[in-house]
């Protein structure tokens, strides 16, 4: 690919999704964008960039952006965050929200659904204790293709073998040939909609728990900082943010502080707004 064409793609991706493509990663463009080139009936990436220049077609730009996302995910990814959610974070929030009985959870890079569905299964297991509670789980992603797959809730043997405890498979999945179909009762616990983390999330509402896992790694520091800043604004001061195993807020944003004794989870710093439940409690 010509150097100036590489730069066009690099700029386009940075602008549209935050993705940083260093010159050493140029090979990724080749492998992931060739299918897009074929779809748009051009020979190679230089021709694809020519098409971008000529048309500025929104659908083409979206195809390029989506093709460059890394969508890898798994059920109960890394195990620990979900154990921690079940045994520490959820009981604590249930206590703090005891009068309101309402929780909102946001999976901000939901990919093909394994993360929100893992949470939904954990919550479903707790349904006796959570009787009378309203729990909303919102899964968003830049890529509409992964969201379609998430909504379908159909997974391969390979996918259900990664991280999903066998007892959950037996309880919550039905088999159809070599495919595994997630039960409607879990699927209907999660709503999906497209959302780009580079945009203002205010319209999504407020969230007690945010999973922002394995996505910040693709962005540069200013983008990481502004995303964390916008997410913090949606959270009450006792809300909890989950990042991926290789991600941190240290040296990037002071809008979150680590939760003592708990690895990988963070809470908004005190200048964030308190929850309405918090305000209520303080008034008594």
């Amino acid at each position, binding site marked *: 690919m010509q150097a100036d064409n590489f730069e066009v793609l690099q700029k386009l991706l940075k602008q549209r999704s935050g993705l940083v493509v260093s010159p050493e990663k140029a090979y990724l463009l080749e492998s992931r964008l060739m299918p897009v080139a074929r779809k748009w009936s051009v020979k190679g990436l230089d021709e694809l960039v020519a098409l971008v220049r000529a048309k500025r077609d929104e659908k083409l730009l979206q195809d390029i952006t989506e093709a460059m996302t890394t969508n890898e995910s798994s059920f109960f990814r890394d*195990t620990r965050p979900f154990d921690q959610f079940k045994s520490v974070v959820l009981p604590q929030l249930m206590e703090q929200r005891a009068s309101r009985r309402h929780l909102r959870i946001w999976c901000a890079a939901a990919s093909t659904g394994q993360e929100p569905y893992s949470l939904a299964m954990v919550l479903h297991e707790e349904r006796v204790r959570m009787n009378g509670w309203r729990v909303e789980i919102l899964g968003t992603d830049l890529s509409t293709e992964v969201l379609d797959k998430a909504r379908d809730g159909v997974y391969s*043997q390979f996918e259900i*073998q*990664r*991280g999903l*405890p*066998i*007892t959950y*498979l*037996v309880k919550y*999945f*039905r*088999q159809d040939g*070599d495919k595994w179909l997630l039960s409607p009762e879990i699927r209907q616990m999660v709503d999906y909609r497209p959302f780009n983390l580079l945009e203002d999330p205010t319209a999504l509402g407020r969230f007690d728990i945010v999973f922002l896992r394995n996505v910040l790694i693709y962005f540069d520091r200013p983008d990481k900082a502004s995303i964390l800043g916008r997410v913090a604004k949606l959270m009450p001061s006792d809300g909890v943010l989950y990042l991926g195993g290789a991600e941190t807020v240290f040296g990037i944003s002071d809008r979150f502080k680590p939760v003592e004794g708990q690895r990988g989870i963070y809470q908004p710093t005190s200048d964030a707004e308190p929850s309405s439940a918090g305000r209520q409690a303080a008034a008594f």
Partner: protein
Amino acid sequence: MKTCLVVDDSRVVRKVARKILEELEFACDEAEDGKQAMDHCMVTMPDAILLDWNMPVMNGIEFLRALRQMTHGAEPKVVLCTTENDLNHIQEALSAGANEYIMKPFDSDIIQNKFEQVGLL
């Protein structure tokens, strides 16, 4: 060091599984069928058992049921590892006392993941 008994009638599968488990720092023993596995467990009860289903002499489920009746037979974590990949088989294995279930083909990631889930790692 934790111990794991690999029970499979295929020498190749035993070899591959042993290599993966040794990398996860298990001391491994092998058995070719359920009968050999019983003999082994009567002498030393392993911490973990990676167990095939279809084997001559005594199959995996027969062995598992017998194992769970033995003194200390409830202790080993048993992970089925088999080509049987339908829900009925999985349910049967769970009710016979399996802790986890791997559908072949397997790789080191799956074994590590399942061993973590049952608390062996």
